[in-house]
């Protein structure tokens, strides 16, 4: 990470995007990613996956406005969450599933790698 990136490591953008908090868990057969998405309704969540990435865009039902704050010092509004995550292993995008409850999105991404049964001699 460059020096500039280390000093200005914001979790928001001037374009109105906020980076959501997220957690990635490897369960062996699946990768489970959860996102914390306050002020978001299920119908306003868009998920796109490839074999090695998952990207979410989630529009908030009400924008977040901050005034004269931090390095901005003017009114700034955030209207959506956006995040792309590079996955640690290839997954099968067609078999992915997602659920949304109490502002938390859970995406289950089955891994592409197949299990091989090894008999014990």
């Amino acid at each position, binding site marked *: 990470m460059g020096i500039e990136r280390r000093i200005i490591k914001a*979790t928001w953008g001037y374009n109105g995007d*906020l980076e959501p*908090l997220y*957690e990635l868990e490897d369960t062996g057969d699946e990768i489970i990613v959860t996102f*914390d998405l306050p*002020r978001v309704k299920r119908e306003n969540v868009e998920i796109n996956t490839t074999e090695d990435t998952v990207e979410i865009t989630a529009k908030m039902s009400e924008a977040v406005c901050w005034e004269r704050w931090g390095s901005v010092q003017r009114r700034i509004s955030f209207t959506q969450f956006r995040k792309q995550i590079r996955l640690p292993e290839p997954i099968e995008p067609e078999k992915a599933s997602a659920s949304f*409850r109490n502002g*938390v999105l859970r995406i289950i991404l089955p891994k592409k790698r197949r299990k091989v049964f090894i008999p014990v001699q």
Partner: protein
Amino acid sequence: MMDTVRIVEESVVTRKNPIVIEGLPDVGLVGTIAASYIVDKLKYEEIGYIESDLFPPVMVIHGGKLKSPFCLYGNEEVVVVSSEIAIPPNAVYPLTRALADWFSSINASLVISVTGLPVKNRMDIDKPEVFAVGNNEEAIRKLKEKQVELMEEGFIAGTYAVMLRECYKKDLCAISLLAQCFPVYPDPGAAASAIGSLDKFLQLGIDVRELLERGEEIKLKARDLMRQTALSASEMQKSAEQDMPIMYR
């Protein structure tokens, strides 16, 4: 030699064996959210701050005024310890020692750490349960009397775990209230449950409706502190709380 951690009192308050509420940042920011809600709701004044060379060189500005991010609030009967930035892992021992010394000097009747107990299925839990740990027989008796469910086995890790021990060494009665929570997401729902248990001791009739109603706004405001805290927590062996201790004793 100067103390590593200094408790600075800014106002002269005659204390009457106060109850201390410790709400330092930890999993789900349960204690921080609960402490901040209580301070706001009960209109507690700022009574001091904590400073240390072990803390990052960060100050906070509110309403144009410079403040320490490690603050003390309260009145004659209650003291609230809170922070707006994560506790650096190397500051945990000196901080808890200094706080226990200070709690002893003000004759605290009870020290209550409010924190979270991370659970994997938090998303599926509507009303988080609260468990408790006491640091001596008297603390356990108080918890049983208030019908708070005790944690019988397990590891606890982080600032509150060391706080229990440091208070024990000072002969202070201390308990930790642990509400089931999201590990790395701010959890106002867990904070509301914790306040429900905490109020059994304070008996101030704290209404948590506003906390639940403003939950989404609180989550948005607490994102960056949660991120810092999660990084700090990973160095505090927090994962040990999911481990099973050896059962045979």
